[in-house]
């Protein structure tokens, strides 16, 4: 009896559209955006699937997951090829990031807190670098690096990265330091703190967020840079960064498509991990508002 009732009421309900369908009709942007995001991820998903395929499996069916999975073969093979360059990229990104944060924040502090002869002029001259496209200075910078004897050393990457990254760092951090109320520093000075302690113990801890933004920019920029390392590291395999290694080995691996894809995924993982920890900072920085011309 009760089952018949239940069936009956379901039928009555069925006259109107089921609730779930009405819900999604009203909220149609949600599925549309989900489809878009999935489409945006399709190349990466396909790479993940293809990395599991042997060559024969790939020829038979390039789409979807095919079994058995060959991850245990493709990933170790790819790792052998890219491990050294991952290490190099980690070193380059980390060291240049620390360098930019250290020198950049010091300079920003000086620009924010003191007044001295020529300060405004020097600051404007530094900012003017933001208008110069990288392509203009590519060739002559290579000439400079060559003349300094840095060709095919890691310094050819580190020094220009640290120098160039500071423009942005000085800019952002100065804006932030200026906004710290000067009473903080004055009372510290009265208590006998040195100017360096004011910087180290007051300004730096307060600027954690903006320093995070600077660090992310620097890591992304150096990790993704293709051309500068390609030029300056040349043929020296043991100094390849990730993009150079992928570019060169891609042609060598040729027919081993699964291993190629595994290499792409390994190369992306460190940034994805970094993003997992900093996504909040990243997204908030972009959506906090006020970005416009």
């Amino acid at each position: 009896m009760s089952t018949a009732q239940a069936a009956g009421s379901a039928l009555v309900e069925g006259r109107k559209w089921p609730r779930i369908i009405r819900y999604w009709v009203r909220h149609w942007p949600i599925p549309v955006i989900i489809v878009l995001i999935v489409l945006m991820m399709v190349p990466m998903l396909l790479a993940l699937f293809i990395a599991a395929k042997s060559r024969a499996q790939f020829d038979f069916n390039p789409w979807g997951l095919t079994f058995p999975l060959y991850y245990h073969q493709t990933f170790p093979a790819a790792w052998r090829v890219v491990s050294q360059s991952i290490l190099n990229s980690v070193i380059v990104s980390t060291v240049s990031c620390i360098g930019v944060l250290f020198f950049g924040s010091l300079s920003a502090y000086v620009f924010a807190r003191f007044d001295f002869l020529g300060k405004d002029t020097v600051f404007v001259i530094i900012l003017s670098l933001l208008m110069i496209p990288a392509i203009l200075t590519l060739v002559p910078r290579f000439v400079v690096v060559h003349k300094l004897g840095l060709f095919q050393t890691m310094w050819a990457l580190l020094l220009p990265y640290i120098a160039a990254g500071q423009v942005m760092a000085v800019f952002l951090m100065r804006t932030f330091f200026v906004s710290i109320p000067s009473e903080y520093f004055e009372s510290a000075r009265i208590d006998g703190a040195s100017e360096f302690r004011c910087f180290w113990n007051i300004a730096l801890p307060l600027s954690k967020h903006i320093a995070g933004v600077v660090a992310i920019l620097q890591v992304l920029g150096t990790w993704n840079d293709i051309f500068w390392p390609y030029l300056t590291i040349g043929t020296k395999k043991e100094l390849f960064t990730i993009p150079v290694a992928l570019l060169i080995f891609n042609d060598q691996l040729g027919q081993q498509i699964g291993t190629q894809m595994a290499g792409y995924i390994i190369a992306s993982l460190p940034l994805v991990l970094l993003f997992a920890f900093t996504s909040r900072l990243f997204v908030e920085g972009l959506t906090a508002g006020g970005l416009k011309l």
Partner: protein
Amino acid sequence: MGLLKSWLVGRFGGVAAGQQAGQTEERPSAAGQPQAGVLAGQRSDRARHGLRWRVRHALPYYAVLLPTLLGLLVFDYYPAFLAVYHSFFEWDIGLPATWVGIDNFVRMFTQDRTFLRSLRNVGIITVWIMFQATVIPLVVAELIFAVKSMRWKYWFRIGMILPAIIPGIVVFLLWRFIYDGSVGLLNAFLTAIGLESWTRVWLGDPRIAIWALTFSGFPWVNGVNTLITLAGLQNINGEILESSELDGASRLQRIWRLDIPLVFGQIKLNLVRAIIASIQIFEVVFVMTEGGPIKSTMVPGLWLYYNAFNYHRMGYASAIGVFIFVTILLLTLASMRIFREERA
């Protein structure tokens, strides 16, 4: 990821410029006032002391700035100067330079057919990227804006940005693979849906390669631009939107009459960033086609590289660099001026 840099420039550049002009900015408490206080306190110093005292007073500060300034001098200012300087010379590393005046620039437009071809290509790419950087983000941002649930919104924002952190080289190589003639996924897809006659070597056909290159990156959603636009939408006063709803405006009317004018600053920022990035584009071309087949996908940036390192014409390469620099500068200024008038 140079793109991230440029939005920050867009944002804080405005603040700095306003400060120098002495205008009141949107965030006076953040930047303007304390700064003004410091300067006022110090101005009396300037009047009291002579030049010698001021030079000596400034020295310790320059000592702290020294590493920064030295690095910029060696790796940025000097190269920028060299680029402009060498554009008037015929020159290669290790050889003496010969002054040729503006010959390099004349040759670019009169004798170098590859360069002219590269101008056409970069034109195509720039127009497309300008569209992709402004219109599509606006549409997607409106979609996300229409979502009421905060939790969905949060995840959508992360989903938008996630593809942007995949390294460029990986994206370029993946698309090269998708377009591949023998193992490529695009051909496999066309065969699977019965359009076998459409399959081709996408990046190997001189007539099609530039279009294949330009339209790689489907579905062309730029997450960073979308979030910038979305931020603009969220900053619109809710009462304005409510009253438009009460007055019976449809969603499309609201978007056209209210949203677009109110987020125009964000759209313009996206546009200028797109111009800066696309005029000097060359990494994607280098990875996907190396400018081929038969130089049909050449762009100025890559042509600069080939001239400098393959043909040993560094002077000529520098001239191309100066041309790109000036083009970016002019287009940026022009677009800012044109769109300012349109808004008024």
